């Protein structure tokens, strides 16, 4: 699996990929951080199964709390997830459309470890992007706060730093969830455009629509992967352990399904 992982990094280290995903992530993080300062309101990320409904607080008062440096992240976890989903779907599905998969399989016939290594490299990239987004968001918060008379004393306390760490971990989990969705769609559809289209539609709209339909029968929409991912980024969410476990189950399920389909399907194109 390690050779496959290292091989994937040869592709991921292309300047276009590094600059493209890095700039997209920075842009999204800056946007998320700036929104509360621009609109003058703050909100949470949408909540996991144990969270309360989305709240909006007037003014910038809440930004002076210990989690003020990373409140913006919660609002953009989905957008960041879309960046990761696009990266993963392109990386996996392009092996089919470019015809390079057959080269890889001739040189590394063990399919499960081939995809496992590839997804491992993409997971590391997704983690790096989450941490990069956190760094950008925190730095931007420190830059914007003095301009808007937001007190930052609480941000550097132990609980403030813990909030930053918790948000970063939540963002990593969220990115891994979207990465697993992108991987499964890419393996199933074998075409980047279709995989990205369906993935983005699911992330931005589909889950909410399906969630509302499901909720008519049973109140379970909060357990869908997108809701769980958003909930984990929101540091006020009280159901972190159950959300984490549920999201881990989704990620493991999507990944296992992708590897199973990849291993069984013939490479005939």
């Amino acid at each position: 699996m390690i050779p496959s992982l290292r091989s994937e990094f040869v592709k991921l280290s292309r300047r276009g990929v590094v600059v493209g995903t890095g700039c997209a992530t920075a842009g999204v993080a800056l946007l998320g951080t700036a929104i509360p300062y621009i609109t003058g309101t703050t909100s949470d990320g949408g909540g996991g199964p144990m969270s309360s409904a989305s709240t909006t607080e007037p003014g910038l008062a809440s930004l002076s709390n210990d989690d003020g440096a990373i409140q913006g992240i919660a609002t953009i976890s989905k957008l960041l997830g879309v960046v990761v989903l696009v990266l993963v779907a392109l990386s996996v599905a392009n092996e089919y459309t470019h015809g390079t998969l057959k080269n890889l399989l001739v040189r590394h016939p063990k399919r499960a470890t081939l995809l496992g290594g590839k997804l491992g490299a993409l997971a590391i990239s997704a983690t790096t992007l989450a941490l990069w987004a956190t760094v950008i968001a925190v730095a931007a918060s420190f830059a914007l706060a003095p301009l808007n008379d937001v007190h930052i004393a609480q941000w550097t306390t132990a609980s403030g730093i813990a909030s930053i760490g918790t948000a970063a971990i939540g963002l990593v989990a969220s990115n891994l969830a979207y990465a697993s969705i992108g991987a499964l769609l890419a393996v199933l559809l074998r075409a980047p455009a279709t995989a990205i289209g369906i993935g983005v539609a699911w992330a931005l709209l589909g889950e909410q629509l399906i969630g509302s339909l499901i909720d008519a029968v049973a109140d379970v929409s909060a357990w869908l992967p997108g809701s769980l991912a958003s909930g984990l980024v929101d540091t006020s969410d009280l159901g972190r352990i159950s959300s984490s476990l549920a999201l881990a189950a989704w990620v493991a399920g999507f990944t296992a399904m992708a590897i199973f389909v990849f291993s069984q399907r013939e490479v005939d194109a």
Partner: protein
Amino acid sequence: MLTKAYGTRTVVNDLTLSIPVGQITGFIGHNGAGKTTTLRMLLGLITPTSGWGKVLGHDLSRPSAYLHKVGALIEGPAFHPTLSASNNLRVLTTIANISEHRIEEVLEIVGLTDRAGDKFKSFSLGMKQRLGLAAALLPDPTILILDEPTNGLDPQGIADMRILLQSFAARGTTVLISSHLLAEIEQICQHLVVIDEGNLAYQGPLHGLTERSSEQLIVAAEHVIDHGRLARIYRDRGYEVITSDIEYCETLTIAAARCIAPQLNRIAATENIVLARIEPHTVRLEDAVLDLTHKRRSNS
């Protein structure tokens, strides 16, 4: 013996192949005959519906046991467009634990050293093809499987490829080439496998097909002046002399199998005519293959 079916359509039907070691084998057939499907089965990319096979002594169901000794170029060169030539090869050396030194070596073999840092998308078709060959050579293969390796190459490139493949065969590498350029196959291959509609139509030495197909013998007397008399003698003995202008021809063409040659020689000798030449009439590979497939379809 391999069979591959997609639903009710059988693409490869009970195909039994033996590829001689250290030789260049041509693998030919019409479009859709099942060539690429067969190669994909050999490379573990698709699974046979039924049957079995061995590559380098290992079962087809365990491709990881033999693929580290196999180089392949299937259905044209496929690489990441925005990666350089050397980085595209690095993807493969890294995943297969092959020394990175091989990248420089194979690029030099195919004449792409100067373009190692250029992106694949900037390459001409011929250069892409050469990079595909370079990728196939990375593991220093015992078997080289090439699907249409001369596609896009200019005449010099085709000649270079021919010399290159012959040098590999001379070193003991087994080369299997699928191509529709039969003139190329004819020049380079010693062994031939012909498939038609998924069925084996012929396998054996190249000359076996070109001679078998004709079933004609070329006869030349020591003195051209004897040809008229010799033709009449053969006709009197019941042989069909195809040559029409028997008095002024350089050679006579007789409709007879190779095994009849001693009889024709004996007849000439009893008539005090010395034969300077008697040999099977070889036909072009293209004609031989067309003839073979036509006969096979007529019989089935």
